[in-house]
């Protein structure tokens, strides 16, 4: 029993690492400053096959597994989180639900372009009025003849407004269950459908080179065949999607936490104070040792959750633990890395300034830290 990577996993990790250092690191700061979506980087990631990493070859995928995706996300996030979350959302939230719950026609229609990175899909679950309490969905869809009529709005939807966005999958109330609860279903809404409006991008604290919008649906009509999966199963389907997404966010968090270590080790060796490199001082050494310890421990936690996921075993608790621990490690490491950098840690020109701004959302997105603690304690029978 060990967590050493196979030769192929190492080769994939190295390939993505090389790409991130050569193609992302030199240019991402400028995209970030301009709040611009990095189309050129996305195009290159598409060419490398990253958007199809865990999907089967018959749909243009690479035939890898979810762990392979996590390795790629970690290496991207070690350099930049906007790029990593763009890939994570495109696969976990965009392509995966269509692959897992779609009809053969829906798969044929959407997956080849999604796995090639030529098109992106968004996933509309969160609404302006609710987040963690996903059962509070207010968006409604009514079947009118052979069309769904969608009304409502969705908030914080990643990849929903790029030039490449081809569709958004939205959850909507489609009726009432026998027990009186809301019947929630998932419906595919193609970009450009009349009544579907993408609002201007948010002004975000971090992830500034990723694409996030509020979406509104005003008598938006799509064919009845755009129902994704079973009617009334929309909510259950997405719980699985979210469990997987948590492992991915944990991997992304580990990447950011490790990036903080990389940058701090480099800086501590260069920056001099009182006649020697600041890395000679134990106050800095111990800080960095603690950062490395957090990154390493968080990595083991997500490796274990991903291994269970790939093996088809229950992984809900492990995913929640990994996501909780890794995201808090990322926030702590970002804060400490900024401290190691002193005044330069507060400047956007140094990657750690970006890491600091990017870290906080990791404790919020795909289930807040409080939700993770709820999942863990429930799983313990409390």
């Amino acid at each position, binding site marked *: 029993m060990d967590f050493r990577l196979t030769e192929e996993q190492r080769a994939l990790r190295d390939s*993505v690492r090389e790409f991130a250092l050569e193609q992302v690191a030199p240019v991402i700061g400028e995209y970030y400053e301009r709040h611009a979506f990095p189309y050129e980087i996305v195009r290159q990631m598409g060419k490398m096959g990253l958007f199809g990493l865990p999907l089967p070859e018959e749909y243009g995928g690479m*035939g890898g597994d979810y762990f392979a995706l996590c390795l790629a996300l970690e290496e991207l996030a070690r350099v930049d989180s906007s790029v990593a979350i763009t890939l994570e959302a495109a696969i976990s939230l965009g392509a995966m639900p269509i692959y897992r719950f779609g009809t053969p026609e829906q798969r044929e229609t959407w997956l080849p372009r999604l796995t090639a990175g030529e098109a992106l899909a968004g996933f509309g679950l969160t609404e302006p009025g609710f987040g963690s309490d996903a059962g509070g969905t207010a968006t409604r869809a009514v079947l009118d003849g052979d069309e769904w009529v969608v009304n409502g709005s969705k908030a914080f939807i990643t990849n929903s407004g790029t030039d490449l966005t081809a569709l958004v999958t939205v959850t909507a109330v489609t009726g009432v269950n026998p027990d009186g609860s809301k019947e929630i279903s998932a419906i595919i809404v193609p970009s450009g459908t009349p009544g579907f409006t993408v609002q201007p991008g948010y002004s975000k604290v971090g992830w500034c080179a990723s694409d996030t919008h509020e979406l509104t649906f005003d008598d938006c009509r799509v064919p009845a065949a755009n129902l994704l999966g079973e009617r009334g199963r929309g909510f259950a389907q997405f719980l699985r999607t979210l469990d997987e997404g948590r492992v991915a966010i944990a991997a992304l968090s580990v990447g950011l936490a490790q990036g903080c270590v990389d940058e701090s080790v480099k800086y501590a060796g260069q920056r001099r104070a009182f006649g020697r490199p600041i890395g000679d001082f134990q106050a800095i050494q111990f800080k960095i040792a603690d950062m490395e310890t957090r990154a390493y421990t968080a990595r083991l936690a997500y490796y274990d959750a991903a291994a269970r996921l790939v093996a088809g075993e229950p992984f809900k608790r492990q995913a929640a633990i990994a996501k909780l621990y890794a995201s808090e490690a990322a926030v702590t490491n970002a804060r400490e890395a900024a401290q190691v950098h002193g005044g330069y840690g507060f400047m956007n020109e140094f990657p750690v300034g970006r890491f600091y701004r990017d870290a906080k959302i990791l404790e919020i997105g795909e289930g807040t830290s409080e939700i993770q603690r709820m999942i863990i304690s429930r799983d313990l029978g409390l």
Partner: protein
Amino acid sequence: MNIVVLVKQVPDSGAERNLRSDDSTVDRGSASNVINEMDEYAIEEALRIREAHGGEVTVLSMGPAGAAESIRKALSMGPDGAVHVVDDALHGSCAVATSKVLAAALRTLSPDLVLCGAESTDGRVQVVPHMLAERLGVAALTGARKLTVDGGTLTVERQTEEGYEVVTAPAPAVVSVWDTINEPRYPSFKGIMAAKKKPLRTLALADLGIPADEVGLAGATSAVVEHSQRPPRSGGQKITDGGDGGVRLVEFLAAEKFV
């Protein structure tokens, strides 16, 4: 088109590199070894020609057993198979001997086109492409920044310090490339998985009919007699601007013949 790409494993030029203290050859043991950077451009060019014209791409590498790792990485970019010439007697081979071995291996592969990097970042002699062409009796189109294949004719834009020259030759030929020719792809996961199933054939000197004493340190036509570490960088010269700072900077640049 049957294309053979020459790939050499070298110590990472971004890390510290050394010569061995015992025989003054490149220290490959303690270094992090990678594909010679320029060779990645040669691989990419070969793959693009295959995509446009069909055919097969074979990687040919001469090096110690550890070079197999770089050969697998080259295969993960997309070539069809590889040949690895590995033999203890090859250790310390000079450029002349290297070209002898590679030429012998190439004859067994009968390529229409041999592609290679214009130089390796370890030896940097830049003569192997020319020597290979001479031994094979074919044209050497060296230092390409662009390569066009039109039927059996190869046309190359040959990069020079002032601009470029256009040269052509019929296939087969040896073409060496600079990093201006393309942008190499990164291995995809599919490529990585496929690479381990691709054929990697090893050849020893005996398979090529070359006596051991014609290669290696013993058969070398040149020898590194002595080597030493690069001296540590000196403190440089600080100019404090007392009104004449600009003039003194220009004087320095002029003295160093920069302006």
